[in-house]
């Protein structure tokens, strides 16, 4: 049917098996595929090879659970401009911006070719983070408001530039890159497995399980290692527990931003025993150290089963009582309902993923479409809301909390025996490509790796769901009062360091 290679999540393929298409055909194929919303781009990146660039495009097929992989080779010498994917499908915009920023590849018709993160190895060293080309409107009636990069709370840095008409936001442009640490490059510089695992844990410290699970799955696939049932089981519990922990913290933060003190305090304190359960499990409240490639470093012991059961027995009634109270208060609902709307059409057009997409009626959930770990055995139904407003994103969290707890309760009722069939981990296979997708609490996380002819990493690409979703925040706040920006921002809770890498 297509010229793309069909692969599964976490399946290793030989580099030579990935079709190389002429650019025009490559463009046609991928932009035609993504016309149907069951297909979306999970990663699109360039691999520089001498004076050429090899472009890889990974399209997720939500109907079959395949990932459609294709590539193209273009000249890397600024000699010509290429037509962009983004002109046909806006969801590609950020990937092409990244390719342009990293390699200097020119596009003839990209609608919004703005910097993504000012990486240290960017093609244009003359571009500087202090001189971002903001969209501007000449008018005596409008004014600009600049916020950041350092914000008023304890939060990561990023710059927001509003164009306002009175108190109303006409346009918001978000400038990121302050958090850039060179993560993708650090994966390649000679490092041992533990160092790379620690690096994966540090991509986004609030999504330790999401990113480290993606890395571990990828590395194990590169090494042709099949993890035992106990490893997959423990990682699934950890993924869902991370979702519960962060969603609870988000509910607290949402209450804080509408000055609902009781909700802020109660959800805030309810998060403490959840992350303390990670502490009991692996010695770190944010679960650093829990996931290790090829082994089950911290098995789910009977003590952990008891701890989790006790946690949820105490957590659930208090959380639901607080939430039920909160949703009856007109002063709360007035701030949440019809605020910061992302329509279904917008979400689909810009390629939203995860919770943000699901709050706008767009079902994007890797656990459901491209199952990994043991999600294939869980009859998972993504939770979907349709209004796309702050309240929808709040409701999603409430319902995902109880769904995750249900999954964990089922999982700990039947913990597989330790270490059955976990062989020794070998080295990565040469000339291979692996894509690893996980559904972190924010949404779809994608790690891709390519090895060279000796099995060394030649390319490592990380995509946090925030990369797709930052534009959703910019659109959501249009025609809202600028005073509602904090609550809109919090309802997405996107990652700065996950975007900036």
């Amino acid at each position, binding site marked *: 049917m297509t010229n793309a290679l069909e692969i599964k999540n976490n399946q290793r393929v030989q580099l030579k098996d990935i079709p190389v298409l002429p650019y025009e055909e490559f463009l046609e194929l991928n932009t035609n595929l993504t016309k149907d919303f069951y297909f979306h781009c999970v990663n699109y990146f360039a691999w520089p090879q001498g004076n050429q660039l090899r472009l890889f495009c990974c399209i997720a097929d939500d109907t079959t659970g395949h990932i459609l992989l294709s590539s193209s080779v273009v000249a890397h010498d600024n000699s010509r401009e290429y037509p962009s994917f983004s002109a046909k499908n806006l969801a590609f915009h950020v990937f092409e911006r990244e390719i342009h920023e990293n390699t200097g590849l020119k596009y003839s018709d990209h609608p919004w070719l703005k910097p993504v993160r000012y990486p240290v190895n960017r093609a244009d060293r003359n571009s500087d983070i202090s001189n971002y080309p903001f969209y501007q409107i000449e008018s005596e009636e409008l004014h600009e408001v600049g916020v950041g990069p350092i914000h008023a709370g304890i939060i990561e840095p990023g710059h927001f530039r509003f164009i306002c008409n009175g108190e109303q936001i006409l346009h918001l442009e978000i400038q990121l890159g302050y958090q850039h*640490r060179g993560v993708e490059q650090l994966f390649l510089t000679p490092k041992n497995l*533990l160092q790379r695992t620690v690096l994966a844990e540090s991509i986004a*410290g609030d999504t330790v399980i999401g990113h480290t699970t993606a890395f571990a799955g990828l590395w194990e696939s590169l090494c042709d290692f099949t993890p035992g049932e106990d490893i997959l089981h423990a990682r699934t519990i950890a993924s869902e527990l991370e979702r519960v922990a962060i969603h609870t913290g988000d509910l607290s933060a949402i209450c804080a931003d509408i000055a609902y003190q009781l909700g802020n305090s109660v959800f805030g*304190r309810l998060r403490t025993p959840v992350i303390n359960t990670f502490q009991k499990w692996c010695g770190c409240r944010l679960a650093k150290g829990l996931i290790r490639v090829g082994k089950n470093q911290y098995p789910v012991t009977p003590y952990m089963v008891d701890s989790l059961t006790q946690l949820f027995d105490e957590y659930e009634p208090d959380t639901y009582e607080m939430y039920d109270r909160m949703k009856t208060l007109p002063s709360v609902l007035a701030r949440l309902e019809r605020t910061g709307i992302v329509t279904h059409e917008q979400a689909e057009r810009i390629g939203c993923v995860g919770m943000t997409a699901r709050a706008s009626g767009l079902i994007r959930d890797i656990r459901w479409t491209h199952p990994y770990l043991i999600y294939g055995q869980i009859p998972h139904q993504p939770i979907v809301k349709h209004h796309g407003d702050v309240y929808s994103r709040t409701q999603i969290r409430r319902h995902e909390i109880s769904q995750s707890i249900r999954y964990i309760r089922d999982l700990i009722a039947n913990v597989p025996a330790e270490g059955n069939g976990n062989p020794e981990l070998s080295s990565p296979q040469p000339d291979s490509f692996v894509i690893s997708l996980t559904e972190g609490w924010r949404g779809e996380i994608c790690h891709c790796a390519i090895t060279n002819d000796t099995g060394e990493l030649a390319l490592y690409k990380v995509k946090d769901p925030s990369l797709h979703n930052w534009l959703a925040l910019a659109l959501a706040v249009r025609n809202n009062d600028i005073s509602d920006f904090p609550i809109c921002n919090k309802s997405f809770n996107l990652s700065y360091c996950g975007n900036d890498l």
Partner: protein
Amino acid sequence: MKYKANIGSVFSEMRILYHQGKQYIPDVTTVEVPGIFRGRPVIKTAAAAGAGADEDIRFLPDLCPTGAIDLEPLRIDLGKCIFCGDCERACPSRIKFTKDYKIFSATRNGLIIREGEDQKMTIKADEVRKEIRKYFGTSLKLRQVSAAGDNSCEWELNASGNVNFDMGRFGIEFVASPRHANGIVVTGPISQNMAEPLQICYDAIPDPKIIILAGTDAISGGIFAGSPAIDRSFLNKYQVDLYLAGNPTHPLTIINGILALTRGN
């Protein structure tokens, strides 16, 4: 009807409050952390380790992902350590991480734990600039700057002020403007792209002011040390007043560290 509904609402709010029970930690200087906690390590000398003492330790520096371990004497630099515990697992007869969360120092060298040492980490009066305890001993307002922090230390700094840890009880709080602050708390390895905003923020804080580094990434760069994308020149210009170890730093480390700096141990 309306009146009735209001009465009901008061009761449901009170019921919620009642159901929370007592959440604050009465004494944050002595409370024990639940479960596993990798705090201040204790390193035994070969002689003290006894029967297992012939265990080879020469591989330990290479095992450590951030190069925190050195030999002769065997020592761990808590400013580089990411508390993964792999050295303890590899060499249990010599290295043991205790549950002591008071892992902080007023000097960079004070973060290095050597074999044979088993003392609480403290801050001596002569290590602290005189004005700190004089001006900040009862109240301290801090500005937080995440300079490429991964949002884990930031979460824990936020948690220090929640109803459980309640750092506000000591008059220690984070404020929204550098103009209102007595000092800066830096997290993250400091990216090139954050170097200038960090400097601007620091300059905007009135004197006297303090600098606190929270977490391994801030103290040494952690796993990002040596990345071409980071720029730590800010730290060469000023004296750091407090190093809070941890990856991320635990709220109890944060609170006890700041108390030790400003009020003595």
